[in-house]
């Protein structure tokens, strides 16, 4: 059922494209919400955990392809995020998960397709994209290890000149992550991996983003810390209402906290649906382990 809704989404987009390729998507998406809302309601009756979110996509990627030289990292990918949603992008290594986020942030060479933010085309200049309220927490945390925690946090809001507002945001981030408050004058290199991830999240939140893009937030962390990170993401979504798009390899953990998931395989989006829908199909086994009928004896 989920897959059908995803297919209908794709086909309707194709008709929209042929009619008016440069127009805003917002209206079209609102029209689309009729049938897809019904399928979502059916879905939520089956599982109580996922609350369906209505409304147009605030961020939308339309047929985006990313190529690094001759290597195609992302092909014809179309996806969207609604306000307040937590969306996961999953898939095996090299599927193009991180490329989705990098393409959005103008950090990867987008060769075709468009990215829309609230119906308007996004430029490919990172410093312009940031001003729309999109924050990116890169993979591997990428903290400034010779700066203190406070300084790291301040780095998160380059266009904020109002010192009082910086202070306010820093306080609210430290309220969310008390450990950062304790160590606020320490260098970032003096923290543990889990604390560094909290700092990376906090630094992203300093921009007071509408949309937070998280690239592999649990990479290289101990299992109990991984749980904590997922919990934190859920808390950020609940308490601040931030829309979150998270790229993750840890499928079990991430499916518990997201509203919807996109699954990528070799640069293409092969599935879209709620966590329940993902669990119902064997799409994950297919993309992660290869097609069952094709799988060799050593793969099983």
């Amino acid at each position, binding site marked *: 059922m989920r897959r059908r809704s995803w297919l209908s989404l794709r086909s309707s987009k194709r008709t929209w494209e042929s009619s008016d390729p440069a127009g805003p998507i917002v209206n079209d998406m609102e029209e689309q919400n009729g049938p897809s809302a019904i399928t979502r309601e059916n879905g939520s009756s089956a599982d109580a955990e996922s609350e369906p979110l209505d409304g147009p996509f605030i961020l939308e990627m339309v047929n985006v392809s990313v190529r690094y030289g001759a290597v195609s990292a992302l092909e014809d990918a179309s996806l969207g995020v609604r306000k307040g949603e937590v969306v996961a992008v999953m898939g095996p290594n090299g599927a193009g998960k991180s490329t989705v986020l990098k393409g959005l*942030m103008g*950090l990867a060479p987008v060769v075709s397709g468009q990215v829309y933010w609230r119906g308007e085309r996004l430029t490919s200049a*990172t*410093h312009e*994209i*940031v*001003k729309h309220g999109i*924050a*990116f927490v*890169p993979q591997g945390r*990428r*903290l*400034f*290890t*010779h*700066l203190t925690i406070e*300084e790291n946090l*301040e*780095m*998160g*809001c*380059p*266009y904020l000149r109002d010192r009082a507002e910086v202070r306010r945001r820093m306080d609210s981030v430290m309220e969310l992550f008390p450990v950062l408050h304790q160590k606020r004058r320490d260098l970032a290199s003096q923290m543990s991996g889990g604390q560094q991830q909290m700092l990376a999240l906090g*630094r992203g939140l300093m*921009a007071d983003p509408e949309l937070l893009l998280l690239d592999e937030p649990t990479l290289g962390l101990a299992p109990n810390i991984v749980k904590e990170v997922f919990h934190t993401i859920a808390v950020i979504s609940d308490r601040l209402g931030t829309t979150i798009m998270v790229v993750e390899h840890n499928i079990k953990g991430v499916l518990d906290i997201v509203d919807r998931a996109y699954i990528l395989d070799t640069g293409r989006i092969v599935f879209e649906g709620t966590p329940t829908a993902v669990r119902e199909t064997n799409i994950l086994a297919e993309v992660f382990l290869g097609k069952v009928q094709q799988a060799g004896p050593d793969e099983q």
Partner: protein
Amino acid sequence: MFTGSRRLPGLKRSVRDPGAFIRLARSNLELWANLVIIAWAVTFAILQGTGFAITLGTVFAIWAILAVSLNLVVGFTGLLSVGHIGFFGIGAYTVAVLTSNASYEQLRTEAIPTFGWPFFAALPVGVVLAGLTAVAVGVVFNRFRDDIFVLVSFGFAIICFNVFLNARAVTRGAFGIHEVAKPQIGGWVFDDELSFLALAVVFLLVVVLLSWFIVTSSFGRVLTAIREDERATEVFGYQVTHYKLTVWVLSAMMAAAAGGLFASWTTFIDPNSFVLLESILLVSIVILGGLATIWGSLLGAMTFVLLEEGMRFVPGLPDQYVGQARQVVLGVLLVLLMLFRPQGLLGRYRL
């Protein structure tokens, strides 16, 4: 002053814990370095007399301006430039050409137009000219990082030297420019060594304060972030190229001011003062003192000047070998430093 004095809390702990004492003693190398070098400088000055101390101080001030300004680029931003001497040369030549009032016809060598400007009118021109050159060069250099950046800055130093040597209609090439004017404010001419030293120290103070202001501001924080992780800095919306270009230009302008002082102090310049080797010595000073520390650069410059001038008085060393010997000593010192203390005397970062 500019490096952290967070060492003292360790003293109490070290009484109980011998391991901590060893760590403290090791970290106090900074303190030792400060004491030894300053003591060395004072002893040297006392032994050699006031006149020599004044000369030493002036040479130190000029090298220190260069080292502090280069540290902004190399230490604080992480761009290893070996072309800094080019900006020094641009400043020196601008001041020399504009202020020189020599009658070259009598010297029976190539004549260049003389302007006879006062020093304080020529210096801003040199500084601005170096700044403009830095903008032009920096826009191109911004495309490069790390080792490639070293190579292109290397190329810049060589180009500058060749321009100084071959643009004979302006620089008189290898003949050099004579009679560079001494600074003058109203009727007061800085023509004796002591007043020139005072002027050089004032310049140094201005450069140090400016650098200190830069590195402690939010601008300086972004520079540190760029050194740490340029791509990550971009992700937050910082236009990294603007920051790098700004600090590059500011640093070049400071170097040009040092160049102007140098030309006026020696009253004669030729291209030999602006060879690549000088640039590499300058980078050595910055590494010796430590990356990303202003005080370290001052200390590095002092060490270098003491070595350079001090070699003259080594007994049994013939005068003609002094020049080469000090390069050998500096080279050995750098190798030892890289082996045992790669962050330099006061620095916290490795190259």
